[in-house]
């Protein structure tokens, strides 16, 4: 322990103050504020407006266990109509943000999104095949979920069997190639589909929406998202080290191969579950991790929870916009792209000074 010679002369007080110096409290406060604003807006705004007072008395009555002193329609709008959709939007936003955070760290690239390894294109192929075969809604979701897992599995097996000095690059390139093959499959199924009945359903699904979400969707969404996120949170310190170059991470004692499989599996589980419920919603998994990183810094111990909270709030706001902006619902994927594209361009312009 000769390297520690003199270590006891270091004052303990100063060490404690160091770890508190860069507090993440303001960053988390902003994330929570966004989530609360999203919740209040999503529950009150819409075709049947609910006043803030009515919302609070309904929530209070539920907590206290008695009936609220409001019109029954208000309660029904909050609990039956908007409630499940609000929870689903939060879960999907959280899922995409957490998966994006994990993939950006794993691929050491801040411009990566959760569908980098083909989870979305695999789920898309599963869903359109399900619609083409006129399966039940639940079965379509199940096939989409499996499609996402299978696509990433295929990408991983191919990527791992190619011998290369840069396994990360091979994995990303394989993801792009396999993703475009699945995309061709989606095109083929759309081409073969009944243009009056099936094709609109496929298009709607591929653009992403929560309009058909009900209570029964919540458990199949919550289970995989919670399981995947729990694995990622448990590995948070190792994920910091995994964002170093491969050889450095190994020299620091991290078995990068098995750990990469665990992180990819957890993030894919989370992504596939959200895509199966809500269809393809791009950009959230790219944009939110950046916003979260600017709020609380790059340490995954803070970044993962911050991204989870912010992602939930972000998609709640977008979904509220989607159902209130126009007479017809606007697909989520279109709104997130309209917001995400300028953000991405700004990111490219400023990435030099921020990340290097």
């Amino acid at each position: 322990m000769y390297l520690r010679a003199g270590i006891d002369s270091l004052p303990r007080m100063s060490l404690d103050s160091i770890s508190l110096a860069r507090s993440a409290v303001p960053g988390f406060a902003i994330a929570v504020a966004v989530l609360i604003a999203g919740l209040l807006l999503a529950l009150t705004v819409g075709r049947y407006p609910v006043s803030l007072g009515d919302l609070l008395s309904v929530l209070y009555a539920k907590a206290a266990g008695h009936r609220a002193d409001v019109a029954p329609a208000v309660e029904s709008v909050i609990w039956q109509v908007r409630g499940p959709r609000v929870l689903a939007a939060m879960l999907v936003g959280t899922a995409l943000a957490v998966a994006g955070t994990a993939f950006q760290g794993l691929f050491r690239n801040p411009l990566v999104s959760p569908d980098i390894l083909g989870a979305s294109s695999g789920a898309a192929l599963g869903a359109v095949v399900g619609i083409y075969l006129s399966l039940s809604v639940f079965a379509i979701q199940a096939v989409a979920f499996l499609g996402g897992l299978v696509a990433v599995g295929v990408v991983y097996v191919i990527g791992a069997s190619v011998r290369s000095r840069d396994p990360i690059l091979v994995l990303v390139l394989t993801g792009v190639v396999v993703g475009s093959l699945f995309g061709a499959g989606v095109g083929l199924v759309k081409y073969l589909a009944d243009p009056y009945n099936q094709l609109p359903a496929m298009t709607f699904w591929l653009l992403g929406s929560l309009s058909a979400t009900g209570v029964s969707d919540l458990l199949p969404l919550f289970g995989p998202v919670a399981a995947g996120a729990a694995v990622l949170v448990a590995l948070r310190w190792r994920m910091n080290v995994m964002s170093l170059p491969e050889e450095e991470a190994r020299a620091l004692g991290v078995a990068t191969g098995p750990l990469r499989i665990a992180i990819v599996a957890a993030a894919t589980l989370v992504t596939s579950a959200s895509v199966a419920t809500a269809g393809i919603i791009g950009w959230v998994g790219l944009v939110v991790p950046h916003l979260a990183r600017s709020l609380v810094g790059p340490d995954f111990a803070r970044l993962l929870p911050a991204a989870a909270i912010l992602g939930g709030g972000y998609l709640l706001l977008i979904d509220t916009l989607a159902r209130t902006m126009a007479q017809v619902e606007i697909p989520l994927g279109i709104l997130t792209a309209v917001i995400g594209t300028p953000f991405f361009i700004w990111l490219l312009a400023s990435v030099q000074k921020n990340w290097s």
Partner: protein
Amino acid sequence: MILEGDKLTIGYPDRVVGAGLDVQLAKGEVLALLGPNGGGKTTLLKTLLGLLTPKAGEVRLDGAALSSRSIRERARLIAYVPQTHVATFAFSVEAVVLMGRTAHGDLFARPTSDDRRVAAHMLDRLGIAELAQRPYTMISGGERQLVLLARALAQEPQFIVLDEPTANLDFGNQGKVMREIRALAASGLGVLFTTHDPNHALRAADRAYLLRGGERIAEGPVGEILTRERLEALYGAPVQMITDGSGTAFVPG
């Protein structure tokens, strides 16, 4: 405890870089690896670290095959200081040094208060304690090199392997790293470093290992091995030797 390579054939899956290489590094000793670009220095170094598998021969630590130890055990025995690079994410300097503690905790562990004390101690030892809360992306190249050295020290290893530790440093910081290498050996570590500057080997190393085209040209105490003739043969270029009362220096001719 000795880190040794026995008749190593080194290289990558698709090509062989060098063959028949024997290396020994004892604790408390500094070995400098010299040679022209592409001569196999970095490949040999990564093989000794266990980052590359030798194509033939064996790397042994304390008499047992390095490959018989887990990746975590290895990280507690041998630390690696890579050439500085641009980091993707703006971790604080303290967080970067704390990453050196990873092998001391289990799969789900977070840095403990003891880990924080070790990290702070190593930053202090290298005179960069005031950088602790700065983003690693916002400090100078020389400071980054010292931070990576602090991270390696935080591993509390028995051996430390540095890849061109002076490559990105200004004149003053080069001297600082050379002094630190001597101090590490004095406190009992075995140190291996690669360098393009024979003067650094002369100054900081006990022994020099000359590698050209994947072959060992010469090995031995720096005072005997580093001669004008050998260096001219090693680099295939004229070299001048300057000697005065205070010592010897080599200058490319």
